[in-house]
């Protein structure tokens, strides 16, 4: 039987995983997803095999998502019914995604799966990331940061469709929507999660722009979907005996600190800020993939082979850009939180002064 590599964990490994977990957790608490795309490569950099890194990542994801969802539910952000229904279809999507990855691995090897993952990253992040960032820019340009949530034309159309026997009311949408619309969206979320580890990059924008869910509720409800997927995914990988619970709990140690910060942060910001952070992270991660692709093409002999030092430099730049994506998101969240708290404090002081008068 193939031997699974469970690494010796050093103090440096613990510190790094805690820190990356904290930052990833903060981003997850705020936009509903994130961190996973850095955590898996971070673990692999420490010498963890790909499958153990993915499995351990998923094992940390569901408890993190649970804590985040419980916290954001206190603020009224979570649509539990929507999260569970989409989560169910996301599980099926995860199975399909895992099956596709296994097929590609048998045909083209590990490098083939890496190239496949990068192509999916680019396709999804280019379309969705640029759209979200453009939306945030339009809000900023029009000065409508404080405007109440308005569903897109597509979402209004979806809400207007009545298919007997399939309709369900969702509080976040404030309307009845056919479950048939949730099937492909949930499925795509799960398939993406199994492929690039971040289903929320499709799930959250889909809820906002296709179903008409307010941004804050979409990012919170995504945590429910992530929990459902995480439990299912962990069971599958645990059955295979490839979950390194030590790594998962070290990351969780940091991410649970972070997710609380991100969750609290959402109560001080408007929808615009959540879209901005999501867009920034997605576009930066998209940019990072371009540095990995030449290496994969070289290893598959689809281009002239590159020398090792060139490959090393490209990978380093790609990894650094990934880290930058997460750090940029985290910094934006912290700045927004601190600004929001300061503004809130001055508003409260002003109100109290008026009451005294």
């Amino acid at each position: 039987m193939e031997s699974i590599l469970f690494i010796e964990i050093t103090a440096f490994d613990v510190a790094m995983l805690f820190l990356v977990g904290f930052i990833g957790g903060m981003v997850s608490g705020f936009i509903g997803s994130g961190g996973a795309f850095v955590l898996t490569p971070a673990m692999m950099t420490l010498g963890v095999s790909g499958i153990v890194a993915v499995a351990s990542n998923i094992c940390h994801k569901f408890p993190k998502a649970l804590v985040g969802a419980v916290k954001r539910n206190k603020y009224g952000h979570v649509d539990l019914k929507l999260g569970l229904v989409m989560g169910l279809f996301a599980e099926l999507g995860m199975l399909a995604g895992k099956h596709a990855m296994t097929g590609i691995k048998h045909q083209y090897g590990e490098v083939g799966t890496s190239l496949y993952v990068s192509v999916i990253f680019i396709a999804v992040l280019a379309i969705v990331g640029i759209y979200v960032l453009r939306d945030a820019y339009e809000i900023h340009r029009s000065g409508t940061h404080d405007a109440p949530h308005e569903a897109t034309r597509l979402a209004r159309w979806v809400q207007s469709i009545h298919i007997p026997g399939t309709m369900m009311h969702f509080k976040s949408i404030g309307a009845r929507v056919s479950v048939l619309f949730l099937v492909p969206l949930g499925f795509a979320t799960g398939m993406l999660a199994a492929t690039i580890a971040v289903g929320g990059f499709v799930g959250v924008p889909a809820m906002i722009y296709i179903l008409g869910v307010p941004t804050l509720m979409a990012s919170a409800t995504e945590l429910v979907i992530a929990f459902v997927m995480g439990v299912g995914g962990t069971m599958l990988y645990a059955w295979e005996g490839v979950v390194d619970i030590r790594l998962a709990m070290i990351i969780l140690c940091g991410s649970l600190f972070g997710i609380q910060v991100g969750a609290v942060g959402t109560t001080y910001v408007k929808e615009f800020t959540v879209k901005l952070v999501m867009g920034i992270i997605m576009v930066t991660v998209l940019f990072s993939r371009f540095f990995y692709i030449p290496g994969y093409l070289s290893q598959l002999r689809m281009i002239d082979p590159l020398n090792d030092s060139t490959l090393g430099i490209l990978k380093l730049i790609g990894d650094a850009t990934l880290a930058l994506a997460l750090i940029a998101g985290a910094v934006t969240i912290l700045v927004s939180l601190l600004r929001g708290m300061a503004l809130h404090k001055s508003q409260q002081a002003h109100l109290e002064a008026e009451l005294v008068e």
Partner: protein
Amino acid sequence: MIRDAAAARKAALYGLISCVLYTVLFFSADRLVAWARATHDGDKLFFFAPIVIAFAFSYVHGAFTGYFWEALGLKAANGATSSK
């Protein structure tokens, strides 16, 4: 530094339990790796261990981290509700 004494007391309690859990995890690391290897090799008796452990940590450490930030004054904005 401490803004909420009640939260600080709860943070201390859950923090202590969390420390105990992580200490047990540290000293049980070899056994947990052995269980994973055994599961991979076909003995599925302890396959559920990671899931149970993760749930336990999520409850205890989740409570600790929540009270930790509350004790330092990081709380939701007043009247935090859904954005609708």
